[in-house]
């Protein structure tokens, strides 16, 4: 009996445990099914997110950029040259680039991009340390103290160009003028000799020490022009007379404020690969370098001088696209813009619009990453305005206040035509690129009234044609060192012609027609990873005349983020 009971119990337990195991298996199966469904669902969500994002083409909002810093050691043949004036030959560290990109993609096929570069410029002087005591004048930007009333009078800031007109004020509160014709001084009587050497000249409101000039440089008491007019356009006023120094109230320390440069800012509509429209400020699509543009992209830390002869960026309307041909791509760019000008982002100071374009055929296949040939052209009319303040003073009533009137006159105007061709080959680690540029200026107007006398130092020659090219070769070594890539490179540049220059710091300043200069660079580009790149560069420039020769070592570091 008991045996039978035991047997029955064992049987029952076995049946129940089999049943329980089956139940467990079912449960596990269900759990697995649910987990699988969950995974499928999350995959679906992921795919949905991916496809929706892709429909937008890019993220709605993105910030990225790059940072660049360098160490350089230059040697100028002539420290007194303009090169020596604007660059130091001391071994120096420079923090050169902090560029931020802001990209918005509000809806499909629309995009806004701005690239902002933060600058230490204008880097004006501080009162404490940098003013030369012999000419120290506690001037205030845009204002002077009226000696008759002792009240500070604010001068207007005019929206033409970046100029902020100033009349320096002496320690005793009376205004002074600066004659800054550093080459010849001012010829008052038309005999070709300077009668008024450079320096500060006090002006008193009683009529003493005022110099009045008419259009030919003779004294004209009826329609006087204050000789201070060169002041507002002189280099020294731009470079030194801005006060960018202030005391930070939070800690009492002096601060030199800097600025920002909007490198580019545009909106664009990109409905098709072959047709896109861009509106705003963009880099001129001319040649290779100016299109690639960003420091991290470029193999060397120095921009070829060829690029000085085309506008780096312009404001206007551009259409561009890529047409896919059987074995090649045809890229095109066409644009209409304000062209060059001191204030081209906001105003066109002539009625003409500049036009230009670029075509590039690009072939690539397998290890041949790129074989391209391109052509670019730019045509525009440039107007150089001369701005000054005209002071009218009633000589019969010496105690009356003078009136200040801003004057803008066209100094000269020219038509500018620039054409270029370029070639690039990238294969098996080798990269060769070259750009050639020809520019001619056809002067259509000269202001003889201004250019013919005391202002001759502003006038360019009439035939400033430029022929310029560079050839650059680079080779990425076929091995790396713990992921670090090494790319030695070399570049030769040649520029020939009259190198018209009115901008301070232009390396070509002072050259005559048919002069030429050559620049040779060799270096090593070291890419630690896709984001970080170092460049060691040695550049040597030889000019037809000796006083501008220079050589320079540069070590730069750049990181993209």
């Amino acid at each position, binding site marked *: 009996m008991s045996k039978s009971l035991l047997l029955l119990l064992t049987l029952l337990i076995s049946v129940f445990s089999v049943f329980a195991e089956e139940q467990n298996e079912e449960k596990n199966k269900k759990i697995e099914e649910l987990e699988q469904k969950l995974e499928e669902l999350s*995959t679906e969500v992921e*795919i949905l997110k991916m496809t929706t994002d892709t429909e937008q*083409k890019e993220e709605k909002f993105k910030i990225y950029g790059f940072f660049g810093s360098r160490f350089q050691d230059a040697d100028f043949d002539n420290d007194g040259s303009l090169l020596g004036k604007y660059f130091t030959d001391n071994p120096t560290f420079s923090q050169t680039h902090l560029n931020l990109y802001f990209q918005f993609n509000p809806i499909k096929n629309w995009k806004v991009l701005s690239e902002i570069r933060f600058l230490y410029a204008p880097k004006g002087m501080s009162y404490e340390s940098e003013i030369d005591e012999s000419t120290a004048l506690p001037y205030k930007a845009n204002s002077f103290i009226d000696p008759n009333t002792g009240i500070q009078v604010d001068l207007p800031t005019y929206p033409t160009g970046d100029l902020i007109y100033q009349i320096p004020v002496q320690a005793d509160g009376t205004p002074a003028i600066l004659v800054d014709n550093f080459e010849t001084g001012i010829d008052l009587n038309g005999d070709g000799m300077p009668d008024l050497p450079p320096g500060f000249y006090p002006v008193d409101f009683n009529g003493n020490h005022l110099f009045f000039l008419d259009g030919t440089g003779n004294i004209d008491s009826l329609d006087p022009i204050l000789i201070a007019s060169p002041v507002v356009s002189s280099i020294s006023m731009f470079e030194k007379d801005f006060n960018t120094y202030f005391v930070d109230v939070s800690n009492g320390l002096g601060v030199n404020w800097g600025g920002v440069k909007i490198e580019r800012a545009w909106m664009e509509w990109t409905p098709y*690969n072959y047709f896109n429209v861009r509106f705003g400020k963009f880099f001129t699509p001319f040649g290779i370098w100016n299109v690639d*543009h960003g420091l991290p992209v470029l193999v060397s830390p120095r921009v070829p001088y060829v690029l000085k002869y085309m506008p780096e960026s312009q404001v206007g309307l551009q259409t561009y696209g890529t047409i896919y041909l059987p074995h090649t791509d045809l890229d095109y760019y066409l644009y209409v813009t304000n062209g060059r000008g001191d204030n081209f982002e906001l105003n066109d100071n002539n009625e003409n619009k500049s036009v230009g374009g670029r075509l590039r055929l690009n072939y690539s296949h*397998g290890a041949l990453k790129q074989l391209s040939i391109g052509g670019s052209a730019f045509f525009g009319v440039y107007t150089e305005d001369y701005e000054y303040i005209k002071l009218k003073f009633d000589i019969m009533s010496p105690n009356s206040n003078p009136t200040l009137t801003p004057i803008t006159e066209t100094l000269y105007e020219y038509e500018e035509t620039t054409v270029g061709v370029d070639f690039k080959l990238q294969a098996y680690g080798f990269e060769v690129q070259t750009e050639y540029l020809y520019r001619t200026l056809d002067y259509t107007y000269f202001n003889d009234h201004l250019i013919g006398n005391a202002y001759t130092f502003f006038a360019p020659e009439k035939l400033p044609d430029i022929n310029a090219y560079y050839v650059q070769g680079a080779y990425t070594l076929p091995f790396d060192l713990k992921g670090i890539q090494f790319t030695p490179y070399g570049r030769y540049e040649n520029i020939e012609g009259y190198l018209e220059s009115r901008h301070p710091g232009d390396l070509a300043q002072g050259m005559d027609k048919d002069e030429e200069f050559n620049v040779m660079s060799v270096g090593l580009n070291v890419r630690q990873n896709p984001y970080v790149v170092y460049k060691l560069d040695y550049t040597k420039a030889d000019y037809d005349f000796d006083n501008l020769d220079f050589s320079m070592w540069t070590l730069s570091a750049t990181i993209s983020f």
Partner: protein
Amino acid sequence: MNKYIVLVILLALFSLSAQVAVIVHPDNPIEDISLRDLKRIYLCDKGDWDNGKVILALNLPEDSPERLLFHGKVLGYTVDDLKKYYIDKQIKGENFREPKDQKSDLMVQVVVSKADIAIGYVPADKVGSKVKVLKVEGKLPTDPDYPIK
């Protein structure tokens, strides 16, 4: 350096046998694709299908030998070179969307089977039935002169 040599050897050994199939959604009307168009798509120079829809390009994982093969045969870039290429493109301010890395060839096929804008590549011997295999330069992976192998 050693890593590079090992990779090259692995790639060489692998390429003796492996081939990569290019796949799209079955509803995608495209049947044949050129190497040039594949390169345009993965270098982000071409962002839309001919019907105007945006292209969603998919990558295998970075360490996948099929990806190395695809990069070498189609793009002419290593994975690191391609990263630099995309950074440069971004700094130039160009419009593009990078291909999306997936965890496995299975995931590539799942995405392609569900998204009609997607294109991907997977080992030819692992292609499932829910995706369409494209001819490349008129050749299927089974053809002797198929270009991606």
